[in-house]
């Protein structure tokens, strides 16, 4: 196993882990704002790590640039969508959870 392969697998696994952490945050965090925080931060990093791992493997510069472009676009998109969700939540006056408090509004949201 070459050094490159080891580095690649390390990056891939780390990226996948970041996704797991982000998803964990989505499930476990108490309110909308913290959930967005978990999703946008962790997933962007995760995608970045995976893109890096893939770049190590490509032959042409063009392909590497394309991969980087994907990363960049996804970052802008997720930043924007995160912002929009938080903004809409703020518009609807969804409160921030205080420490120790469990979610209330979500139960009513599902009905």
């Amino acid at each position, binding site marked *: 196993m070459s050094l490159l392969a080891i580095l690649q697998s390390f990056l891939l696994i780390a990226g996948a882990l970041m996704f797991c952490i982000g998803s964990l945050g989505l499930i476990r965090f108490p309110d909308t704002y913290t959930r967005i925080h978990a999703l946008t931060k962790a997933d962007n990093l995760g995608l970045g790590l995976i893109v890096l791992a893939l770049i190590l493997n490509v032959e042409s510069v063009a392909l590497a640039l394309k991969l980087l472009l994907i990363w960049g*676009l996804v970052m*802008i998109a997720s930043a*924007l969508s995160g*912002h*929009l969700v938080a*903004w*809409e939540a703020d518009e609807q006056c969804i409160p921030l959870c205080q420490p120790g408090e469990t979610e209330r509004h979500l139960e009513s*949201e*599902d*009905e």
Partner: protein
Amino acid sequence: MNELIDLTLVCILLGLASLSLFTQSLFRAVMFFILLGLILALVWIRLDAPDIALAEAAIGAGITGILLLDALAHLRATSNTPPQLRQLKQPRFWLALISGAGVILLLALAISEPLAPAVALDLQVSENLTNSGVTHPITAILLNFRSYDTLLEVAVLVLAALVAVTLRQSDEHPVVNEYLPNPLLHACLKLFFPMIFLVSMYLLWAGAAQPGGAFQAGAVLAAAFVLFYLVGLKTQLAQNDIYLKGGWIFGLALFVLVGSMPLLYGQPFLTYPDSQAGIFILLIELGLTLSIGWILFSMFLLSQSSPLQKKDSP
């Protein structure tokens, strides 16, 4: 190893399918369904069908998801009875169970039989590919070998849009443009719009040689139109009946026109002139892309104008 991935995918697929049917909350059901669409896109990749993966992600998950969510918002006020799985005594439950199990059993039996296709249609496709005007087999099938299917399929799309117009309330006001007054959204979308159009046209252009084509491009275009609408840019064009319907039928009209031209020269319907098939296919696809984008968008738009009257008492 690969089988393991496939099996996992299938398990996720079936799990999501059950969840999307049997969760109590309708909102979650729709969410699970959209998720299922995304997983399906992965499955299509595993099935060596990148074209379908693109279409599934854009049309199956994207457009269907948007329409479902949109409808859900309007259905909020209706009496939403959650599924009652526990009512085992209902004959309906047993009928459903027996039919579902019967379908699985019969299909599994049928599938387990060894296959011996007598006709090798895929060989014929690759033999005739050079005469079809494009190098991507799926585009060749959709717009040349079986273009008659595609013609009828576009008619189906126009028809669906037509029903949406039919059911529009006659007493309604013009569509109120309830855009999102968010400065960041505007700024980012200004950056994105050219890119989305570029992607759409690229998908169309690439369809001749690679995965892509009119339907995927049309779905992307529809997304761009919806974004246009959301940020409050001019969508007055769609208010005008002539432009609205003109946009729908543009692709179909072009298709019929190009298709019936050879009839005048004594050739069968939908025949392309020799050695110019590629150009005509691109022309038709361009028309289809615009029309499909417009149809999908107007489905979204027309549904905006009939808000549900809120119920007075729950």
